[in-house]
């Protein structure tokens, strides 16, 4: 028999102001206009795997159900195909809202356990920060080592194929002016840090986050 769960939500389960915060992120301004028509979910190729459909995520954000949204797999399954964004009859940039939620989840470290996607995002960011470019094969290897080492074994055939077709690159691509790039990126986090400090809140910069080990 299936276990019986109580699903009622109390007002204390909400995090007041969360919805308004997300609506304040650049690109997310149209969210209040959502009429819950479900076009986003219907157009989404991945909604069939999500615990909440994109439409439900819109409703949850609006209703301040922060924990439910940030721990859902929905935001991590979004493949950024922008199908929902171009189809939405209210021109809500749903993909951008998903990005805003992903950023929030990473910043607060609350993404669902066992989801390798946030790890990929971090590893990707880290490689860009240090090299300026991405070498996909190296990235994938790192990802497998960190998140899912068994996958390395199961995809040995793929690696072999890549070697055979001359696509297995082990020498990392890098740019010359890495300091320039680092300095540029630093301005963003420094300014933001200052702004947040002024507001009396603390959030880790992406660089700090990346420095932490993945759980």
């Amino acid at each position, binding site marked *: 028999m299936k276990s019986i769960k109580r699903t009622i939500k109390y007002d204390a389960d909400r995090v007041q102001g969360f919805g308004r915060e997300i609506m304040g992120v650049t690109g997310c301004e149209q969210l209040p206009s959502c009429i819950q*028509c*479900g076009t986003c*979910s*219907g157009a989404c190729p991945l909604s069939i795997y999500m615990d909440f459909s994109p439409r439900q995520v819109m409703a949850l954000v609006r209703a301040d159900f922060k924990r439910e949204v940030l721990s859902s797999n929905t935001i991590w399954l979004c493949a950024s195909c922008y199908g929902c964004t171009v189809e939405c009859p*209210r*021109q809500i940039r749903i993909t951008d809202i998903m990005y805003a939620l992903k950023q929030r989840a990473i910043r607060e470290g609350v993404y669902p356990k066992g989801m390798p996607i946030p790890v990929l995002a971090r590893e990707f960011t880290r490689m860009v920060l240090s090299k300026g470019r991405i070498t996909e094969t190296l990235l994938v290897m790192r990802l497998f080592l960190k998140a899912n080492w068994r996958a390395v074994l199961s995809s040995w055939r793929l690696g072999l194929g890549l070697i055979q077709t001359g696509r297995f690159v082990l020498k990392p691509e890098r740019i010359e002016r890495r300091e320039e790039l680092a300095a540029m990126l630093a301005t963003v986090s420094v300014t933001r840090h200052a702004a947040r400090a002024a507001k009396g809140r603390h959030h880790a910069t992406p660089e700090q986050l990346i420095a932490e080990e993945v759980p």
Partner: protein
Amino acid sequence: MSASNGNGNGNGNRNGSQTGAIRIGFYVCHCGHNIGAVVDCAAVAHYVGTLPGVVLSRDYKYMCSDPGQELIQSDIREHRLNRVVVASCSPLLHEHTFRTAVERGGLNPFYFQMVNIREHNSWVHNDRELATVKAKAQARAAVERVRYHDSLRTTRVPIQPDVLVVGGGISGIHAALTLGNAGKKVFLVEREPSIGGHMAQFDKTFPTLDCAACILTPKMSAVRAHENITLWTYSEVAKVEGYVGNYTVTIRRRPRYVIEDLCVGCLECVGKCIYKEAKFPDDFNVGLSRRKPIYIPFPQAVPQVVLIDPERCLQVKTGKCKKTCLEACADRKAIDFSQQEELVQIKVGTIILATGFKLFDAKRIPQYGYGLYPNVVTSLELERLVTSSGPTSGEIILRDGSKPRTAGFILCVGSRDTRTNRWCSRTCCMHSMKLAQLFKEHTQADVTIFYMDIRAPGKGCEEFYDKSLREGIRFVRGRVAEVTDWALAPEEEGKLVIRVEDTLAGFVRRIPVDMIVLAVGMEPQADSQAMRRLFNLSCSTEGWFLEKHPKLAPVSTFTDGIFIAGCCQGPKDIPDSIAQAGAAAAECLALIDRGYIEQEPNTAHIHEENCSGCKSCLPLCPYTAISFDETVGRARINEALCKGCGTCVASCPSGAIGQHLFEDEQIFKEIEGILA
């Protein structure tokens, strides 16, 4: 209510003596909480009471109420007021009310000025202090201005009793019949070759399921037979001149190459046409059937007269045809290839526009596959398919001739979408449920309606929704994302597949169907902007004709004497269209039966002593109201022609032109007061 006594015996000559003194009464209205919640009305009244010339200053709950108006009247008598200022709502709403009150109190109604502290103040501001400051400034401007008001008289212009109705759909038909029955002469102009409009294309009407033709055809025939109605089909309005009571309208009558009075609609010419096959798409059946170059639009058309399509007819196009149609009509000689476009001028006093709507082009939403998949049809196409007089004699069939066993209705196609039409088209929910019921009745198919919200607010409509549910029509709440023809599961092979989130069940579904019906929304006519210019109307941003007031004047426009009815004002169903048509007709009758209109005395006038005779004002007047008197070398204004725009006043280099109600002096004082 509170009142503060002003210092009536103030400074200046105007206020000096008892008889010649300016004695202003000021009233500020709370309008319940509408004004009072934002503007400190008592403070405004107190402030105005301190202004010179103000002998009385009151604040009151509702100035437009009977006691409010009576208050003005008794104050005028008791306090010997000779000027009145009311600070309340927009003058466009209640100026007339208060002018009448002032007149009843024994004053000339133009010794009055109104201050708009609701629409222009309390409703648009939040800060109580700044709003009160603004209200004081507004009130002061009016007080300063009203001193310089003159005693004026309105002029009366007689009204031409004939009426023009533009558009021969159900709204235009009903308006024309109402006016005709009241004994007024009506010109009904219709662009298409027959009247009837969209309603003539419908099979049944919701929510009663009575047959559209059965209720419409008698009205169409009545129009044709009516002694007071002149019907011009295949005609358009080319030009509109004049003003309320006296419009001169030019109608362009396109040649149908058939003399209407001679044709009896026997259709023998159609049979004899050199084109043996009907091969051109038939507009009335939305392209689902074919017609010949000579045709009658549909069997019940009014007038019962054929016409020739100049784009298709060999004779009209090339002049090289055997003209077999002429032979067929040898005895009546109704066919006339020499017909030319004709311009007719008529004089009317009032105009009703009932120009209707057009349907959203479903091709604009490629996701639904209209135009790509043959079994995706629009609601109007299905309407023609279910009609017994339609191209399939009432059989609902797929393009291959087989019967559909499943169907999906997609609602809100083009509607409620910021990328296409933002508005709700209001009728599609009911229309689709009606079609779904007919679909089920005709085919016993499994029918599903895909909707965002079911809107069934009309009389009997919720009951109709219930009937649809009980008859087994399925409802899926979710806006369809796409329609495709590729199969992922065996049951989808050869079908159209709808992908949608069933938002109530909580998951995405793929639903295979045989036929898809798109409930396309209503849009303003393609030429609504041109029409708007022709009749000097306003349009909403969407392109619907704008009513004078959304609640209080729903069929009036900002141009006096021109009224609107039906879907040209916004989407609506048949009962609402008829109601508006009746209302528009009643508005016309009210004007006509009074016999005259009172013109606002805001005309321009020349101060002859200042006119230098430079003639620079002459070309400025769009109404040619200004002429030049060569004998005295001065300009003259014909106040009967002047519409009161004031352009000449502002342009006169000698300052020799004034405008009643908007004299320079009055405006200067208003500026002075508003910046105090």
